[in-house]
């Protein structure tokens, strides 16, 4: 069995979107306990870079020397991974069952996770009838229900109100302090209280 990844290292990384190269010659590393904030203008390649780093797409050049395995990471993209016909609880139960969590274990983590993101009262409402921010919160509940050390979050602040941003900040802080790693893209500056934040500016 492979030891859990404690560092993600890339060198000479190039990312292309279609025929267009959006990132070239990128090299950096991230360790557990750190938060990497990927920033850049629209079209700079933030999402594509994050997709390459988590394994959703192949790099155009360069390599990822070390990094987390699928079982060690969470991906939260622009889409929340929630079926609109199913409730937040049903969606979470599905993802937990898919990842081999026994029912009793799911029962134990589900309520605290939904409570933490403020969706306990709406747990049975179909996700298609939730607001954009509430769906984002339901997606965040997945990160809590299935604990994994590496979080790849693409514009996680999008659609969240002020209390949602506070919630996400708390989650990121707790995750980093607990030895997890976060790689996220965001146009907005991150709150200062977050520990171990490093900036990767794609404009440079």
């Amino acid at each position, binding site marked *: 069995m492979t030891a859990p990844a404690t560092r993600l290292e890339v060198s000479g990384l190039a990312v292309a979107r279609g025929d267009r190269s959006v990132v070239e010659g990128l090299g950096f590393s991230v360790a557990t306990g750190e938060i990497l904030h990927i920033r850049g203008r629209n079209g700079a390649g933030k999402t594509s870079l994050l997709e390459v780093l988590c394994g959703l*797409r192949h790099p155009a050049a360069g390599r990822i020397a070390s990094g987390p395995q699928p079982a060690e990471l969470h991906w939260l993209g622009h889409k929340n991974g929630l079926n609109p016909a199913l409730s937040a609880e049903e969606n979470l139960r599905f993802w937990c069952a898919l990842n081999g969590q026994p029912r009793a274990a799911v029962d134990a983590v589900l309520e605290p996770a939904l409570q933490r993101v403020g969706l306990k009262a709406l747990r049975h409402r179909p996700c298609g009838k939730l607001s954009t921010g509430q769906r984002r919160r339901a997606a965040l509940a997945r990160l809590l229900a299935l604990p994994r050390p590496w979080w790849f979050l693409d514009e996680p602040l999008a659609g969240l109100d002020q209390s949602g941003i506070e919630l996400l900040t708390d989650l990121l802080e707790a995750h980093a302090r607990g030895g997890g790693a976060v790689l996220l893209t965001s146009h907005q500056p991150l709150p200062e209280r977050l520990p171990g934040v490093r900036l990767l500016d794609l404009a440079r």
Partner: protein
Amino acid sequence: MSAVWAVLRRELLLAARHPSDWAQPLVFYAIVAVLFPFGVEVQDPALKTFAPAIVWVGALLAALLGVERIFRGDLDDGTLEQWLLSDVPAPLLVFAKLAAHWLLTALPLVLAAPFLAIALGLPAPAVKVLVLSLLLGTPCLIFTGGFAAALTVGAQRAGILLPILVLPLMTPAVIFGGGAVRAAAAGLPFEAPLYFLGALLALTVTLLPFATAGALRNALE
């Protein structure tokens, strides 16, 4: 195996929420088979001759109805991204998804087929072979359709592209399925076409989930 059950359970839950998704192919199938005799004389012996083809082509067209939508919803809501990043092998998830689709849309066609076949005047021994051939052949149709759906899931005009892609791939199932029923109706040996269908089934359910998962990954790139 828990991942397979999780996918099956989710698909059954979704089918319960949207009954039209599984009822539509069944209704279409019944309409095709019921309306066909109106186009010819009811006592026309040609009807009995064409019955295997009517039931089989009807099943093919009904199975095609929902195929385009197999992965569309999962692409739109981000489920596919999560599947491809899961530590569960993507071909296994694809297999479960297509198996659930067969269970919900094709199995009702298989169960309805004997009634339609009897109505079309097919003799009883041929009806048994018909059911067996559909049991072997409809998974081939669904898994082939699923592969084509994965190839076109990101395409704007998948509705036109998909039938063009899929019909040549589905033709062998119709040839052997219809052939077995025709042979049984004529009192001839029907085992050989069924063996071909069995071989086709073994190939499609074991190999196409890998190709389909690859096509889905390609669609997300």
